[in-house]
């Protein structure tokens, strides 16, 4: 940091700045905890680099407008939008673009009121909570209901737009939702589209990535697959992906939860004495018992 205007020859050690801003640590953590999502990670890295350079320019008295930071995350359910938003809040905080770096998650219910005059205070309250952090609006397109012209969503949208413009220093808004519906939402609300600088799309996970995610979850929860059950789980995913209501990583987690349930039941039913490793081991039978192998997830209660 210098107090005098920078001359052409000032040396800036970029590596050192990058390292000292602990962005690298945050990005590494992102890399490690989230399987796949390569385009998203690249995008986040680019944004981080841009923010860092903007910070440096500012420190050297070069003209910088505060970059617009509002973002939109599109992707199908369970692709990690919320998790990435949380990381994004940390990154923005470590670069000093938001003061506190917390994430406030809001949906239509939190912003839009039920009767005249109810919307403004509700929206204001959420905006107040989000100050100094990131406001994450899940399924943002629900705010706008064109079929009902007296819908109060429009009021919330207008307040949001004003706040996004006037309080740019105070918080960052991230809108999230399905790609197609977000596109229509932006088309009917051009104000949003122009105020959002970064559109990040979260692709669906491939089968291999899903298997890796499952491995990671299983490891984190101190369970383990054996070779048979790993293969069985791969089969399971292969079939599950084809069936309706597939929600990527979230479905994997739910499937694992049900497998753990069956594993516990199997152990209790068998009775007798077991060794500790049996408590962790997932048997092929726990996986194969899933209804997915018998005609579909439509038979399963939760997706």
């Amino acid at each position, binding site marked *: 940091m210098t107090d005098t205007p920078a001359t052409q020859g000032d040396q800036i050690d970029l590596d050192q700045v990058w390292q000292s801003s602990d962005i690298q640590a945050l990005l590494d953590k992102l890399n490690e905890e989230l399987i796949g999502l390569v385009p998203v990670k690249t995008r986040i890295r680019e944004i981080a680099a841009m923010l860092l350079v903007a910070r440096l320019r500012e420190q050297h008295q070069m003209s910088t407008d505060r970059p617009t930071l509002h973002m939109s995350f599109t992707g199908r359910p369970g692709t990690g939008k919320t998790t990435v938003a949380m990381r994004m809040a940390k990154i923005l905080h470590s670069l000093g673009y938001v003061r506190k770096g917390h994430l406030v998650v809001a949906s239509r219910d939190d912003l839009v009121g039920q009767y005249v005059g109810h919307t403004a205070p509700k929206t204001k309250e959420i905006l*107040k909570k989000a100050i100094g952090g990131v406001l994450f609006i899940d399924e943002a397109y629900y705010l706008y209901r064109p079929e009902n012209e007296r819908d109060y969503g429009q009021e919330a949208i207008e307040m949001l737009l004003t706040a996004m413009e006037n309080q740019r220093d*105070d918080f960052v808004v991230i809108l999230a939702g399905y790609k197609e519906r977000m596109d229509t939402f932006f088309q009917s609300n051009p104000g949003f589209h122009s105020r959002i600088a970064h559109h990040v799309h979260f692709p669906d996970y491939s089968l291999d990535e899903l298997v890796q995610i499952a491995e990671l979850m299983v490891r984190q929860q101190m369970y383990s697959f054996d070779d048979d059950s790993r293969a069985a789980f791969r089969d399971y995913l292969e079939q599950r992906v084809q069936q309706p209501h597939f929600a990527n990583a979230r479905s994997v987690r739910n499937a694992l939860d049900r497998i753990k349930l069956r594993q516990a039941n199997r152990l209790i039913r068998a009775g007798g004495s077991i060794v500790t490793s049996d408590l962790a081991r997932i048997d092929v039978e726990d996986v194969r018992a899933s209804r997915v192998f018998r005609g579909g997830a439509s038979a399963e209660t939760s997706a």
Partner: protein
Amino acid sequence: MRITQGTFSYLPDFTDEQIQAQIQYCLNNNWPIAIEYTDDPHPRNVYWDMYGLPLFDIKDAVAIMQTLSECKATFPQHYIRISGYDRSLGRATTALQFIVQRPDDEPGFYLDRQEVSDRQVRYTIRSHSVTRPRG
């Protein structure tokens, strides 16, 4: 007469930055903030009117400073105080309370003496601001 009640009241009035820093201190301790105002600064008047609702779930003092400036604009000649409430088990009390705005003219109190039987005297303090309200 300058009212001294709550924390910091013997210090010169705080600037906005100092108020904000104190509020941030409360928030960092997880004490929800309330903004209260009154025109009667009598020491026994503990129930001031609250401006809006208590400000729960707020992380950044800037949000409270915004509400405070709204309150100041609505009540330019009232006393306004900030209180931070510690809700943790075993404490459950106001942890920090300080005045952030006073009227330009603080009329002070009138001390009333009442002679009763056996040469006893009973004292009453009345706020001038209430007995002779402005406007």
